[in-house]
């Protein structure tokens, strides 16, 4: 005997209760906070170790302190660029991802092709393209605006984010049992309504962990913008080292900057790992 196809894949335990989900997100947040403390600890040990190995004297620490505001300014730009790219990239990725599974060939084919092209291109190459292809200034309503380097870099970083998130969205939507689509259709929902009311809301929980991973990867990619002259953390660090012209500073300075990235992104990674585990069980 053959079993009915399609709907039988449906497992009833995909149900979520919001209160429970909130509690789970709460504990995951705690895990994130614990992650912050842990990462600060790790970094302190790291910096100390570098300092001791290096026979560091007080002057190195004083130099670090002196350049901290300048480095922080650069790091802020890394964070800003990452936030721009993740926001725009998420929005674009949702549409491109929906496009990939749209039942209309003239939408799904271009969406698939774009996704594959931009997902399989090196981020640096896409960044270069955007930096050099995007206009240096735009005229809006008779006024000329200069498009800053960092803004063009943000756009350059947005493109791979769109493509990667598009795949995350497609995978999540296709993991929803076909019975959900059929139930929605049998209630008169159009394809778009089905996506908005039935499919996407169920995907959010599955997309959250990979989305946070993507953000961490994106942040790590922001120093690429230094190659095109953006005044972000890595550029500023090099400027500082050049100004000091002291080889002993090299390792402590890089370790210092490394620690910032680590402190910022390790809690996010912990948080997403926790979410992933929680949602895998429930």
């Amino acid at each position, binding site marked *: *005997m*053959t*079993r*009915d196809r399609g*709907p*039988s894949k*449906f497992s*009833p*335990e*995909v*149900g*979520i*209760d919001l209160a429970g989900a909130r509690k789970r997100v709460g504990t995951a947040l705690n895990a994130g906070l614990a992650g912050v403390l842990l990462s600060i600890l790790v970094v302190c040990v790291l910096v100390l170790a570098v300092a001791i190995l290096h026979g560091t004297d007080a002057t190195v620490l004083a130099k670090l302190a002196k350049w901290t505001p300048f480095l922080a300014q650069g790091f802020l730009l890394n964070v800003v660029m990452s936030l721009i790219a993740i926001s725009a990239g998420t929005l674009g990725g949702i549409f491109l991802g929906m496009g990939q599974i749209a039942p209309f060939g003239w939408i799904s084919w271009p969406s698939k092709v774009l996704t594959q092209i931009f997902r399989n291109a090196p981020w640096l190459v896409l960044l270069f393209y955007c930096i050099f292809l995007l206009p240096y200034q735009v005229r809006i309503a008779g006024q000329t605006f200069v498009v800053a380097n960092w803004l063009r870099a943000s756009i350059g970083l947005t493109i791979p984010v769109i493509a990667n998130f598009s795949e995350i969205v497609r995978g999540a939507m296709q993991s929803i*049992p076909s*019975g*959900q689509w*059929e*139930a*929605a*259709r*049998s*209630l*008169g*929902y*159009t394809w778009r*309504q089905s996506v908005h*009311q*039935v499919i996407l*809301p*169920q995907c959010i929980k599955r997309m959250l962990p990979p989305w946070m991973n993507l953000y961490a990867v994106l942040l790590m990619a922001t120093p690429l913008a230094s190659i095109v002259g953006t005044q972000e953390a890595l550029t500023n660090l090099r400027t500082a080292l050049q100004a000091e012209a002291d080889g002993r500073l090299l390792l402590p300075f890089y370790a210092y900057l490394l620690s910032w990235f680590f402190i910022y992104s390790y809690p996010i990674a912990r948080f997403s790992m926790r979410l992933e585990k929680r949602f895998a069980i429930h």
Partner: protein
Amino acid sequence: MSDPFIKLHDVYKSFHDTPVLRGVSVDIAKGEVICIIGPSGSGKSTILRCINALTPVDQGFIQVGSIQVTSKNLDMVALCHCVGMVFQQYNLFPHRTVLQNVSMAPIQVLKQNKAEVTERARALLDKVKLGHRANAYPGELSGGQQQRVAIARALCMQPQAILFDEVTAALDPEMVGEVLTVIKQIANEGMTCVVVTHEMGFAREVADRIYFTDGGLIVESGPPDEFFANPADERTRSFLSKVL
């Protein structure tokens, strides 16, 4: 019979060159309850899915009320307002509460007044004896309870006919009764019902007419007494001897 309410005429359907329906014709009068029985893979679900346009037909003609299902410019909303469907796997929306599951389509698809729909949905949940679980999520309910919610969801669209596709097949035996009771009640209230089922006792009790399918054809049909007492076709006899 007066003008049939649901009419299938010579319907053909193939999936990738595999014929699944090979000329199916059925006439169902308003208020009639018919049961479709037959071996697995004989096309029972496909017949239901063609009636509410989940599956497009290759050839043939289907009409529900005044709606031509097989016409190119089919109004899907009107059809879904007219015919509801209940699935074997319930297919409730897990991210919505029981009450929202029942009320969302009339509000979002039929654009009916939210307060009125909610009131109706609560009444229907009471009717299927689940008024006290209105704010639960489907995942918190038993299979039988979920299936009763699915029936309430179909009813909330105020359809003129409901299609039931083996709605007790996925249930533990002790829950089959509670779902069949609800269907009986709906049938007795005059709803046009097309029921695909393996519950022979139920079919005998509630059906006005029974259709037997095999290999994408309707092999024979008749009133339950006649059908079960002296089936004409050899295939029907062999099937009944296995399930009875």
